[in-house]
């Protein structure tokens, strides 16, 4: 990588963390990187204009007859046969969950379990770590500091739980994917167990918030819990 390549990359994406070999030998590019990152902070503050109070328009009554569906945007592409197979597996997966839903969940737990079914594509077995920049976006420094002790993180997405944007991560456990939800604004008085037909998990109090950890029914969560708790520090 030469200076031009590096400067194009850093100007397009100031969080770019590649080109270390070039950077270590080029003081000018280090200075340019610092300048771009400083500029980006100013751009961010300038763009964050004040927002007027939410004022909803008059919302008409909706019934199924006058709902206008938008064209669906596929989240990813796959061969038709694979899509059909995935749908059948998903239906069986959700069905098993429903069969096992004889546990009475409090509201937060209920929403968390529902969310698992909402994003089944997150629960894939893989050894491919999520992109570091994506992880930094999903778990911004303003929410939590997170080191790499949690485990192999293979999925990161900002999701909505109880009306708040929260980081949704997946790490790979011994029995399969384990969902981690960082909930800095959801305080729980004590640990809340989650048990279902195909899952087991726990919501742990952490500072003024909590962390939900949910794995397969036979996943040993003790070690994972400890790793996650050791790796997360709330920033708020």
């Amino acid at each position: 990588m030469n200076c031009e390549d590096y400067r194009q990359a850093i100007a397009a994406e100031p969080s770019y963390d590649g080109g270390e070999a070039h950077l270590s030998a080029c003081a000018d590019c280090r200075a340019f990187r610092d300048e771009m990152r400083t500029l980006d902070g100013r751009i961010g503050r300038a763009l964050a204009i004040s927002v007027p109070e939410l004022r909803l328009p008059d919302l008409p009554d909706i019934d199924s007859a006058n709902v206008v569906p938008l064209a669906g945007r596929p989240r990813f592409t796959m061969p038709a046969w694979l899509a059909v197979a995935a749908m059948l597996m998903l239906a069986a997966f959700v069905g098993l969950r429903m069969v096992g839903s004889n546990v009475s969940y409090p509201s937060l737990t209920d929403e968390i379990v529902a969310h698992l079914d909402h994003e089944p594509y997150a629960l894939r077995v893989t050894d491919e770590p999520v992109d570091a920049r994506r992880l930094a976006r999903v778990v911004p420094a303003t929410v939590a500091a997170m080191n790499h002790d949690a485990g192999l993180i293979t999925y990161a997405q900002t999701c909505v739980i109880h009306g708040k944007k929260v980081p949704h991560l997946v790490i790979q456990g011994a029995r399969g994917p384990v969902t981690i939800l960082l909930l800095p604004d959801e305080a729980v008085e004590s640990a809340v167990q989650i048990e279902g037909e195909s899952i087991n998990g726990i919501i742990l109090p952490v500072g003024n918030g909590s962390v939900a950890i949910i794995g397969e029914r036979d996943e040993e969560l003790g070690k994972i819990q400890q790793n996650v708790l050791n790796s997360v520090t709330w920033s708020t």
Partner: protein
Amino acid sequence: MNSSDAATTRRRRFDELVGVFHQDMYRYAAWLSRDRNVAEDVVQESLLRAWKSLDALRDDAAAKHWLLTIVRRENARYFERRRLETVDVDDLTPSQEALLADQPDHELDDVRDAIYRLDDDYREPLVLQVLMGYSTNEIGELMGLRQGAVLTRLHRARHKLRDALNNGTASDQSET
């Protein structure tokens, strides 16, 4: 679930999503239109459209992208309906000036003015990346661009801003 429960659940879902993403919708609309009054109109239309189409959103994790897409389309419709001319940056209306005068801060005024003067093609991906936290892939998807084009626009946008700020004027936004 009876129809009343379903309506209540639907309304609650809408309120939660809008509560979370209203700020993003407004700021995106404001920087697309460069006008606070237009942004409010666009957001109102977008909320109405989102309400009518809510059942098409199958995955709330995709709500932000869905809502911003609606804002983008409504903004385009707004300008098509009004057949507004390109904003002349030297002849601003009060509501256009209000965007630049937001929370006056000498350090930020110049940056905001420089961003305001960027061409739409450069300003929009910058807003999506810096303010909305979008990846270059996600920007490309929303704007219908290939990733290479997004990267080019982003690095040119920052160079334009840097030049404008270093020269002490935000008026020179010509192509480099």
